[in-house]
């Protein structure tokens, strides 16, 4: 107890001291604090800031490793080239589709799973562990097992459903990609939602049922409003992750038959095509798209928006 009092005291004292009234010792302490932070801040800038700036710089150049002599500054013409290209918009559409469909399914399934995990009376630990297994498997490994399951030669699922080479057609491929995504990340969604469920006081639910609210009404009128911040965190993280989908597509279809996502296409242009200009343009565009998604979430949902740190997907 004494420890909490000790640490609590300066925090309470802080607001009392207004800006100008910093003592010599406090100022030195603060300077030391900055100095101690500096290496970490520097590393952060070096590993995140610099690559971002560098790719913006690359995206403004004609820089194709195959034409090293033709490297030049071209302004925004790479952006014009990408934004008028139908392959880019196809990939953008596919990415959006995968994002929306998989996140919606994940939200519904994740909520069900969270409710089950929350309400289980017997073997709660076991239920939670089992439902978290898919999330614990490396995406590429999981993707490979889906790949072999849907293959024509080794595919037990293909055989079971009597499908003919589903991974060679667009719609079945997309369904399989979404299935793989949903299977893999629903537990993550459920985990975040379960944290939200813990926030719902039992008394509130009891009071609601005393007032004659049905189970559905209790869910929509009581639980969801209380859980809103948790739902938003879950949705935001998953939307951002889903928009950058890469590994499942890379393993399952390699982007054949118009199943490429924007990340896949960026990889193709950067690594396969050796076109640093166009490839960087695409990565900057993805960065902007992700920033816009985050911005919309925060604006739309205002105060309920997450500022918390619930950890990323990987």
């Amino acid at each position: 107890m004494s420890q909490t009092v000790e640490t609590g005291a300066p925090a309470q004292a802080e607001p009392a001291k207004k800006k100008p009234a910093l003592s010599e010792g406090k100022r030195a302490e603060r300077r030391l604090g900055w100095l101690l932070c500096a290496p970490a801040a520097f590393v952060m800038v070096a590993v995140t800031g610099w690559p971002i700036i560098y790719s913006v710089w690359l995206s403004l150049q004609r820089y194709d490793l195959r034409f090293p002599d033709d490297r030049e500054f071209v302004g925004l013409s790479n952006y014009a080239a990408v934004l008028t290209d139908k392959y880019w918009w196809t990939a953008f559409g596919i990415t959006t589709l995968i994002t929306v469909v998989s996140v919606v399914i994940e939200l519904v399934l994740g909520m069900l799973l969270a409710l089950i995990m929350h309400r289980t009376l017997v073997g709660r630990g076991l239920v939670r562990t089992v439902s978290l297994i898919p999330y614990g498997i490396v995406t590429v490994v999981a993707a490979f097992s889906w790949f072999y399951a849907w293959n024509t030669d080794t595919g037990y699922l293909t055989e079971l459903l009597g499908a003919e080479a589903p991974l060679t057609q667009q719609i079945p491929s997309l369904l399989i990609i979404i299935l793989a995504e949903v299977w893999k990340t629903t537990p993550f969604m459920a985990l975040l939602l379960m944290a939200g469920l813990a926030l719902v006081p039992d008394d509130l639910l009891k009071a609601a049922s005393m007032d004659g609210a049905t189970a559905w009404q209790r869910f929509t009128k009581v639980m969801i409003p209380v859980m809103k911040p948790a739902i938003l965190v879950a949705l935001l993280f998953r939307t951002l992750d889903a928009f950058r989908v890469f590994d499942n597509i890379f393993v399952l279809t390699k982007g054949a038959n118009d199943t490429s996502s924007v990340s896949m296409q960026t990889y193709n242009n950067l690594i396969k095509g050796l076109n640093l200009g166009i490839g960087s343009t695409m990565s900057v565009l993805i960065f902007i798209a992700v920033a816009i998604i985050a911005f919309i979430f925060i604006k739309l949902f205002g105060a309920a928006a997450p500022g918390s740190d619930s950890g990323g997907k990987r």
Partner: protein
Amino acid sequence: MVSTRTGGRGLSRWRAAIAGAVVLTAVPTIAACGSESGTTINVYLSPEQNFQTVVDRCNEQADGRYKIVYNKLPRDADGQREQMVRRLAAGDTGLDVLGLDVTWVPEFAEAKWLEEFTGENKADAEQGVLKGPLQTAMWNGKLYGATKNTNVQLLWYDDRVVQTPPETWDEMMDMSRQFKSDGKPFRILFTGAQYEGLVVQYNTLVASEGGEILSEDGKKVVMDQGAVDALKLLKDVSTSGLTDPSMPNAQEQQVQQALELPDTEAAFELNWPYVYAAMGAANPDRAKHLKWARYPGIDGPSKATIGGFNLAVSSLSLHKPEAFDAVLCLRGPESQKFQAICDGVPPTIESIYTDDATIEPCPAATTTDKPSMATAYPMRDTILEALKDPAVRPLTVVYQNLSTITSKVLSPPSEIDPDATAQELRDGLQKALDSKGVLP
């Protein structure tokens, strides 16, 4: 007593162990000293069953001047190219000799990753090499690679169904229709999936029509009438009902396996020569009747697209003279003949095709019979004939884009609209040449 004895023994054991460790660490050092400089030449090439034997022989021949190490690249072409490109772009000096697919030389040369062959090296690398394969190792009139092996597709058929092989597509389609109405196997098999195999087919058809996709220097899009006619032919064949229903998804392997089925519906297969050995293993009965002819064309046999590998020296290599030396041994006549017989890859040096001298049994051979080109390559005359009239895939820096866009635009072949598809190809290729091409 007991304790001192065990103590003593323990000590001597320690001494022995230390001495052993010293010897163990010293031996490799001594061995390295023995090979004078200890220069290592790192070769990066796709996995080939008997290439290590070639490497061993060349190491013997080098007599300690350098040691060649064979590093196997991934099996798929994209994976091979990606690894080399990634490392070269990062300035990796650890790659000395690069095994390049015939379509990669211009790209690597233009990016300044390849060292030019000059003087004696050039003369040696060009000595007796067939013109088509040699062309794939050149860029801007300079030689950047030494041809290692080539490849060419042939027409394969069962002589119980087809008596005389067709020479043109019209003949082949007429025969196929006839077989169909007679209730015999009739289908024409070729690689129609959205991948490089479809580009190979299209390139063969363009060359047979006398057309061009790109200008000779690979810097301008041509797509002339011949190229448009080839699109029309590809569409006609694909919509004729004579191809396999799975053609739009068929790669080499599916095409090969379709003719291996005992109750196959196929009469004609267009594929690489490896199918001959594969048939022997999969369907020995049909293997006895499997015959071959040149790829059919328009007015006679076609110019057929050639494949294969070239060996090049990285411009970042720290041991270029040794690397050139190693390349010339690894792709020399003796190596090529050995690999032709034991690995089944067609040589690029013309004289090997008529060389009937036997060699020692292959490493994996089950008999002690000494093989020769005559026993291992019954179709060698047809291959040589096809190689002397080849279709080289467009030599261009942006081949990766050309290949990706072409296979995408042509897929599925039944939905080609000759004029519109040609225009789409023109636009896509021009953009790629301007570095504005977006890969799908």
